[in-house]
């Protein structure tokens, strides 16, 4: 099952379920990048409030997604990491998560909007039909 992506203004929002596979994250990566490419949004917030295990593979796919979004000109933020997950990631090794992070969804959205504002605003909205 694909993880749904919601759209709030120019920001894509997605919340990862507890038991997800790396494949689901890769599908999410493809879906999000397609939406960015089609000029539907400027950034992506990935909420991991429900996720209790982030291993090195998951960390890698998430970081790569952020890198791709960044190369395309957008911003990706990881939001809502549980304290125990953060602790586990720090124990496992440094620099496992190489992307912007925020305490919660709200902070994540603000971070995307701030980043896009500093970069000179978002792309033009498609004309109203």
């Amino acid at each position, binding site marked *: 099952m694909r993880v749904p992506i919601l759209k709030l203004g120019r920001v894509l929002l997605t919340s990862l379920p507890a*038991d997800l*596979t790396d494949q689901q994250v890769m599908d999410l990566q493809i879906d999000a990048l397609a939406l960015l490419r089609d000029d539907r949004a400027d950034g992506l917030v990935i909420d991991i409030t429900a996720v209790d295990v*982030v*291993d090195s*593979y*998951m960390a*890698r796919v998430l970081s790569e997604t952020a890198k791709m979004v960044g190369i395309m000109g957008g911003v990706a933020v990881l939001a809502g990491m549980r304290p*125990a997950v953060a602790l*586990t990631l720090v*124990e496992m090794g440094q620099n496992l998560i190489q992307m912007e992070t925020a305490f919660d969804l709200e902070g994540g959205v603000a971070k995307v909007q701030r980043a896009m504002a500093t970069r000179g605003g978002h792309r033009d909205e498609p004309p109203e039909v």
Partner: protein
Amino acid sequence: MTTPIGSERPDEAPLETLMFRIIAEIDVAEARRAARHIAGRHGFKTVQAYGFATAVSEIATNLVLHADRGGVIHLTAALVNGIPTIGFTAEDDGPGIPDLALAMQDGYSTLGGLGCGLPGTRRLVDTFAVTTRPGEGTRIACSLTRI
């Protein structure tokens, strides 16, 4: 060099053992979930339970990616000297790890990963043992004692 767990030690009282055949990613998700639950059932708190589940996830994903035909994971819970201890073993008949010392170093990866799988997992558990034979397979055994 393998640290025996389960009922192999005389001062141990086994509580439960669960077996998982790991072939695809969906099997990893199942083992990960079970790891969290076995930790919870035996009174492990969140941080230890998450760490244990992450270790299982890491090693199980290795089975999917590195062992040609996957492998088997056993989750165990036992009383060691009266203290609840959870552990897992991962066994496969894959290619083995050619240079174990290198694989245990941070930053080393053959598949372009982050290279922190084995050393990272080692830091999440109390005991960690690997035996590997090129062309024959690998066995990893880990255990975690309840704080």
